[in-house]
C-alpha cells in the first residue's frame, strides 16, 4: 500500500459513525495518534461506532488495544457497534485484548503528601527506637554467646576466626599504613607552619605524637575498617540470609551467632588494636619525616625529644579504644546483615546503614572516651 503510516479517517456518510484506521497499526507508529484517538473517543461518548478494519495492513496488541479502548469509551459496545472487515489474524488479536483493557496502577498509592511526611517522621522515630532496642539485644546475644564459647572453647570456630583476622586485619595493612603515614605528614606540615611563627618548631614533635597516638591512629583506622570490613560483614551475612543459608544453619542445629558472628567479632577485636598500633607508628614516621625534611629536625633530635616529652599514657589512651571500636563495627555489621530481607535492594540499604551506624557509634564512643579521660586526667 502506498500510504503505510498509521492514521485514521472518520466517515459519517451512512448515518453511523465509522472509524477507518489505516496503515501500519503497530506500537512504534502509534505514539502520535494516541491523543487524537482519545479526543475522538471522548467526543463520541454514547454513540454507536463501526470500526472498519479492512484498511489496516499490520496490527499488534497495542493497536488492537487502542481500537478496543476507543470502542469501549464510545459506546460501551452497544447494539450497533462492531468491527467490520477484519482479517482472521486481526480479529483474533482484537478478541485477545478485549478482556484486558482495565488500567492498572503503576506505583503504590502515595496518599496525602503532607500526611505522608508526618507518617514518615513518626515511623522513623518509632523505627529508630526499635532499631536501638534490637541492636542492644543483638549486643547482649553476642556477649552471651561469647561467654558460652569462652566456657567451652572447643566451640570456637578457629578456622573462620583466623580467616577473618587475615581478611579484615592483615589485608588492610597497606591501606591503613599509607593513610596514617600521610595523616602524620599532614599534621606535621600544618603544625610546622603555625609553630614556626612562634619559633616553637620543636613542638611539632608533641603535636604529631599526641594527636596521632591519642586520636588519629586509632580513630582513622576504625573509620577505614568500618568502611572496609563492616560493610563486607553485612554483605556476606546479608547475601547468606537472602539465599536462606542462615535458615539452613538454624535447622541443622548450627547457631549463626556462633558460626558467623562470633568469629568476625573476635577477629576484629584482636586485629583492630594491632592495626591501630601499626597506624600510630606509621603516623609518627610520617610526621618525623616531614619534620626532618621540611624543618631540619633531625631524626635523632625527634626521637630524643619524643622520649623526653611523651608519657606512655598517650599511647594507652589511644590503644584502649581500639577493641571497643572493633566490637561496635563488627556487631553492627553482623546485625545489619542479619536484618537483610528478600531483595538485593534491601542488601544495599543495610550495607549503607551498617557503615553509617558504625561510623556514628565509633565517633560517639570516641567522644565519650575523650570526656572520660579529661575527668580522670589521663
Amino acid at each position, binding site marked *: 500500500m502506498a500510504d503505510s503510516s498509521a492514521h485514521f479517517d472518520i466517515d459519517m456518510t451512512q448515518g453511523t459513525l465509522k472509524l477507518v484506521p489505516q496503515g501500519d497499526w*503497530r*506500537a*512504534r507508529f*502509534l*505514539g502520535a495518534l*494516541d*491523543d487524537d484517538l*482519545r479526543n475522538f473517543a471522548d467526543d463520541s461518548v454514547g454513540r454507536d461506532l463501526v470500526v472498519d478494519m479492512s484498511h489496516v495492513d499490520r496490527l*499488534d*496488541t*497495542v493497536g488492537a*488495544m*487502542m481500537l478496543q*479502548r476507543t470502542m469501549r469509551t464510545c459506546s460501551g459496545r452497544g447494539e450497533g457497534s462492531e468491527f467490520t472487515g477484519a482479517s482472521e*489474524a486481526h480479529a*483474533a*488479536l482484537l*478478541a*485477545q*485484548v478485549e*478482556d*484486558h*483493557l*482495565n*488500567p*492498572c*496502577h*503503576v*506505583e*503504590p*498509592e502515595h496518599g496525602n503528601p503532607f500526611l505522608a511526611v508526618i507518617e514518615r517522621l513518626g515511623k522513623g522515630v518509632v523505627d529508630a527506637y526499635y532499631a536501638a532496642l534490637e541492636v542492644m539485644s543483638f549486643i547482649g546475644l553476642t556477649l552471651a554467646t561469647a561467654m558460652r564459647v569462652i566456657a567451652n572453647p572447643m566451640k570456637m570456630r578457629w578456622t573462620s576466626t583466623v580467616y577473618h583476622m587475615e581478611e579484615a586485619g592483615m589485608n588492610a595493612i597497606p591501606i591503613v599504613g599509607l593513610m596514617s603515614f600521610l595523616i602524620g605528614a599532614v599534621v606535621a606540615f600544618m603544625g610546622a607552619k603555625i609553630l614556626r611563627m612562634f619559633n616553637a618548631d620543636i613542638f611539632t614533635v608533641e603535636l604529631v605524637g599526641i594527636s596521632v597516638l591519642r586520636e588519629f591512629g586509632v580513630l582513622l583506622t576504625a573509620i577505614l575498617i568500618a568502611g572496609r570490613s563492616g560493610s563486607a560483614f553485612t554483605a556476606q551475612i546479608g547475601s547468606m540470609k537472602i539465599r536462606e543459608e542462615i535458615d539452613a544453619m538454624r535447622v541443622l542445629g548450627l547457631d549463626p551467632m556462633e558460626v558467623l558472628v562470633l568469629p568476625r567479632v573476635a577477629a576484629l577485636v584482636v586485629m583492630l588494636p594491632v592495626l591501630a598500633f601499626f597506624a600510630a607508628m606509621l603516623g609518627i614516621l610520617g610526621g618525623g619525616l616531614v619534620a626532618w625534611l621540611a624543618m631540619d629536625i633531625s631524626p635523632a633530635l625527634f626521637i630524643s625529644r619524643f622520649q623526653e616529652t611523651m608519657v606512655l599514657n598517650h599511647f594507652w589512651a589511644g590503644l584502649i579504644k581500639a577493641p571497643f571500636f572493633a566490637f561496635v563495627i563488627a556487631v553492627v555489621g553482623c546485625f545489619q546483615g542479619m536484618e537483610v*530481607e*528478600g*531483595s*538485593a*535492594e*534491601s542488601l544495599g540499604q543495610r550495607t549503607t546503614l551498617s557503615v553509617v551506624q558504625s561510623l556514628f557509634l565509633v565517633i560517639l564512643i570516641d567522644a565519650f572516651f575523650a570526656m572520660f579521660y579529661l575527668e580522670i586526667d589521663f
Partner: protein
Amino acid sequence: MTEPDKSVEHVIEVDGLKTQFGDFVVHEDLDIDVRKGEIMGVVGGSGTGKSVLMRAIIGLKRPSAGTVRIFGDDYYQATDKERDAIEQRWGVLFQGGALFSSLTVAQNVMAPVREHLNLPEDLAKDIAALKISMSGLPEEAGAKYPAELSGGMKKRAGLARALALDPEIVFLDEPTAGLDPIGAARFDELIVNLKESLGLTVFMVTHDLDTLHATCDRVAVLAEKRVIACGPLDEVRRADHPWIQEYFAGPRGRAALAAKAS
C-alpha cells in the same frame, strides 16, 4: 534428526554451534532450527547445557564456533544496529523472572517500552496494564514490587515484560519450574493461548514432562553435547537412545502421557 525442509520458514537457525567454558566443552557441532509459529521444547538432563544453548541464541554466551541466525541474520556477525533490531523482536523470560527489583511490576513492563518506543506516558501505562492482564495477573499486581510477589506471579510478571514489545519469538527458561501443578498447568495454557492469538514462536527450555505434552509442537533432546533427537513428541519418544527411553518411559513420563491421553 529431521532434514531441513525448505518449505517452512525458520526463525532460529543454529549451525555447528560449539560453546565452552575454558576447556569444558558444553556443545559441539550442535544444530537446531526453530520454525515460525511453533513451540519448540528443549529437554535434556541436568548439565547438558539447555540454558547455555538458550543463552548462546540470545547473545549472552558467545559461541566459540558455529553460527546463530535469527530471522536469517547472523546474530554474532551483525552490526550494533541490526542486533538492536533483532533484540526488539524477541522477548526473554528468565528462570526467576529477573524482574528489576527497584521497579514495580508495571514499571518493569514499561521499561522496554520507554527505552525503545517513543510513546506518550499514558499509552505506555495502557500497554503495561494490557500486558499485565494478558499474563494473567490481577490489576493490583501492577503497583507491587517484585519482592512482594509469589514465584508464580514473578514468572507471569516476567512474561508480561517479555511480551512488552510484541515480540515474534519468546524464549522461556524453565517457565514452570517452581510452580505448583495447578499454577504450572495454567501457565502452559497461557503460553499456548498467547502463541495462538499473537502468532508467537516459542523456544522453551524445560524439565517438565506435562508442559512438553501440553504445549510443545516439537521437542529437541540435548545429550552428548548435541541435539540427539528433534521432532514431534511422539516421534522423539520412539527414538532409540537410552536417555530418551529412560526419560519418556520412566514413571513420570508415563504419568504425563496418561494425563495427556485422559
